[in-house]
């Protein structure tokens, strides 16, 4: 169908006059472009600095007698050494810029560079959160304009913009629910969460003081509506449901679930991690949702940055909006955007806020990027985003379901991600082995062992920013490793072979935690740089 590699090279292609061979060991441990990089602590000088600053004059200070007496032990490098160190480190990372990154539920899509440029405009990057509001109206407008589109896209009533990440948004939503219940004098104790939920859901409910109980799933990988109805009662504060769910399926009964929960006096929290599958097509507000966080880094493509920063605005129903936290922005009829904080909440009739979740106004740097993303795509583009994401996932599902077990494929199409299990693998080959073999093929693995409801789960999310050619090459690679897994290829157990590191010993890391650098030659507890002389 297609070459394994679009450059035309195929494994085993003999090239006249050349023979394959293993190379010799090198003196440096490097292998051409694969460079071993020491820690900054191992290469830094005691007095080296990459910044030109004046030598202090000495004399009196006003530090209250607290001036430092001992060195800190911080390594310093010149600018060229610094740039080289981090550039070398960067080359040991896989990234969406390097290739398809099929991490299910994490939504690794292309990050437009226009958005980076915009976030760095001095009017956004170089303004202080406590500047007089008349000097930051543009920044407030960005937050307000984004808030407006988030409300429109979800069909909700209000939005709390300040949560710093998805899990922080979950907490915000659950606290709104708790505040609303307490306001009507209704102390409820339980939040129901399906077993397939992200770990943050039960952790959030517990952090907010609730007891967590499972909602059973049916054979289709969806919430069992009848079982849920049977559990609802005066002790249930609400449910947390991910839709589309973590099996990559739309919860067909969502509206009926919401109606049942509302009838029992509870609230519906929707985990919006997978909103990217339905943006522009379905509005959660039309399904009876009361609160939903939106991971701006997933649906609206702000960069994941190697683990954050995220941003987790929470859209709220009419019933919950009055309890949303401070601060937020509000546009008055004259078109002016205001910052609503503790001192002026009364003027904006927002007197029931449950409090404040963070020091300032939220992830403004992410708001600019997300707004640019929404405006770039527009109404037609956002709908296309959802459609292409779902199309790409179904294409993967149907191109692989003959070689990998797809437990819910019989019940119809998937949404934005395809779920497979390890059924059919040789006994001693695991999902982990397949994932590590996929690394050797040049791919970041899919999400492994999640959701928990499927044995040896592999959750594959290609996103809409992959071309058909990119999908075809990935399918070829995944078919190959799947076939090896079924054949019981023992070599997979030692994969990866070609990554910057072979399989890492995670057990050792947890048993003997080494969490900060310590010079082995220095006495314990003493920073080594101070031992080496210096000032």
């Amino acid at each position, binding site marked *: 169908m297609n070459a394994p590699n679009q450059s035309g090279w195929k494994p085993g292609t003999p090239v006249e006059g050349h023979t394959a061979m293993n190379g010799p060991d090198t003196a440096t441990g490097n292998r051409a472009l694969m460079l071993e990089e020491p820690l900054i602590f191992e290469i830094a000088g005691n007095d080296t600095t990459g910044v030109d600053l004046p030598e202090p004059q000495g004399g009196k200070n006003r530090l209250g007698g607290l001036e430092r007496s001992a060195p800190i032990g911080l390594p310093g490098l010149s600018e060229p050494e610094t740039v080289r160190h981090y550039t070398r480190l960067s080359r040991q990372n896989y990234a969406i810029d390097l290739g398809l990154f099929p991490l299910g539920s994490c939504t690794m899509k292309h990050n437009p560079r226009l958005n980076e440029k915009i976030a760095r405009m001095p009017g*956004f990057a170089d303004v202080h959160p406590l500047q007089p509001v008349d000097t930051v109206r543009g920044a407030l407008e960005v937050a307000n304009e984004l808030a407006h589109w988030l409300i429109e896209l979800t069909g909700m009533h209000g939005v709390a913009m300040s949560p710093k990440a998805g899990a922080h948004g979950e907490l915000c939503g659950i606290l709104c629910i708790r505040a609303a219940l307490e306001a009507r004098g209704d102390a409820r104790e339980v939040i129901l969460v399906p077993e397939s939920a992200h770990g943050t859901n039960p952790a959030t409910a517990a952090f907010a003081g609730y007891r967590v109980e499972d909602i059973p799933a049916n054979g289709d990988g969806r919430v069992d509506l009848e079982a849920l109805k049977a559990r609802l009662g005066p002790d249930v504060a609400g449910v947390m449901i991910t839709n589309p769910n973590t099996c990559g399926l739309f919860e067909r009964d969502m509206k009926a679930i919401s109606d049942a929960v509302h009838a029992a006096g509870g609230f519906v929290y929707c985990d919006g991690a997978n909103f990217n599958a339905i943006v522009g097509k379905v509005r959660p507000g039309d399904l009876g949702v009361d609160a939903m966080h939106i991971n701006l880094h997933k649906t609206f493509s702000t960069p994941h940055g190697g683990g954050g920063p995220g941003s987790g605005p929470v859209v709220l129903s009419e019933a919950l909006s009055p309890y949303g936290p401070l601060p937020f922005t509000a546009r008055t009829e004259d078109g002016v955007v205001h910052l609503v904080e503790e001192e002026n909440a009364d003027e904006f009739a927002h007197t029931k806020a449950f409090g404040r979740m963070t020091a300032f106004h939220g992830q403004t740097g992410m708001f600019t990027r997300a707004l640019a993303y929404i405006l770039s795509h527009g109404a037609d583009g956002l709908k296309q985003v959802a459609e292409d994401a779902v199309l790409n996932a179904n294409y993967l599902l149907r191109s692989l379901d003959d070689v990998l077990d797809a437990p819910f494929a019989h019940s119809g199409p998937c949404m934005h991600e395809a779920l497979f299990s390890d059924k059919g693998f040789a006994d001693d080959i695991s999902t982990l082995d397949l994932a590590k073999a996929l690394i050797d093929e040049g791919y970041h693995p899919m999400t492994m062992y999640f959701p928990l409801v499927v044995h040896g789960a592999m959750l594959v999310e290609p996103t809409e920013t992959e071309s*058909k050619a990119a999908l075809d090459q990935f399918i070829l690679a995944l078919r190959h490793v799947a076939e090896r897994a079924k054949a019981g290829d023992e070599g997979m157990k030692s994969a990866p072979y070609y990554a910057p590191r072979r399989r890492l010993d995670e057990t050792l890391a947890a048993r003997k935690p080494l969490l900060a650098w310590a010079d082995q030659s220095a006495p314990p507890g003493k920073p080594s740089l101070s031992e080496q002389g210096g000032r």
Partner: protein
Amino acid sequence: MRYLPLTDADRSAMLAKIGAPDIDALFADVPEEARLSGPIHGLPMHASEMAVEKHMRRLSKKNLAAADAPFFLGAGAYRHHVPASVDHIIQRGEFLTAYTPYQPEIAQGTLQMLFEFQSQVARLYGCAVANASMYDGSTACWEAVAMASRVARGKKRKVVLSGALHPHYAEVVRTMAKFTDDEIAGAPPSLTARPDDDGLIARIDDDTSCVVVQYPDILGRLPDLSRIAEAAHEKGALLIAVNTEPVALGAIQSPGELGADIVVGEGQAIGVGLQFGGPYLGLFAVRDEKHVRQMPGRLCGETVDAQGKRGFVLTLSTREQHIRREKATSNICTNSGLCALAFSVHMTLLGEEGLRRLAMENHRLACLAADRLAKVPGISVLNDSFFNEFTVQLGQDARQVVRELAGKDILAGVSLGRLFPDNDALADGLLVAVTETTTEEDIDTLVSALEELLA
């Protein structure tokens, strides 16, 4: 649409492979009544890069950038010069567009960086272990309070907050404590030359799980952490020190050295920039290794690979939500990875020597500003001691003064009225922060403007 690579021919071929007649067939599980019939209300169609940039530039121009005015704001967010190479490095796609390092064999770049970052933060704070970062200083502060409660095994419920803790941080703690059993004992700040350490110590009792003290405090003063630590430890409580200006620790002793048990703070001042309040960088460290397993957030640790080569992994994840679910130490999932990278790169460029020089240059300019402001009739400087931020009293409502000076494109500082709107006793206070980016000319401009306004 420039971000979507599929062509219509691709789409048709793929639908054929799937066996679906059209794209709607793939949304068959979405009930008809849940489908949006038309386009999103009011949202225009897709726009070119040029058009979007123009719209956003127009909004950015409605803000007064700090670089375009004499600038004296602090109160938890500080403007420092960030070397150009920092932004270059964090925009490398391998860092910018990577995910959380769950597959360590192909994420050693992020992991080694995090290990170096943790080591830098631990040393800066005088602690044994720092985590891979939190959302920001205020959320790190609450997480520290929650951790102290775990360490006390829920047997101690009282949280003693210093009156000179950043009011937003205190508000986050109060908000979160509403939903736990913690009892928050706060106090209003008072305009005194020195922090009221005695008053704070007097509020610590046997039911106290932790004492939360900001260092330097919200008024720029320097509390006696070692004395507070001693008093806290006598009652079996933990001392949580909060630092919002890491550059200060190049000049003054670290909270860990002074006996703080948990040190948290805002790392934004190094490498991250102002960004109107976020994304920022929460720092979190513990002085004693014995508390590591009660820490929230990600931790990166050293190990070896199958060939014995050194490598790094995320570790001790049995504390975390994706393993422990409702029994996790926190619901936190993400860290502030790219901001941690910016911090680490900037800190590497500075090094011990650069940080010391940077800190002393901040302090020199702050002393100069305090001296010049003290000579303005009607102004008095409150602080006995400070690092790069101090409080002046203007003898009139500082909020009004700040607004009027902003009208003249002078960003004069943060009025205490903005921070503590309910506390009239603080209304004439103005927090003035001075960094290496402040010039003597900026200081003179502020002094002249205040002379004129207060005359």
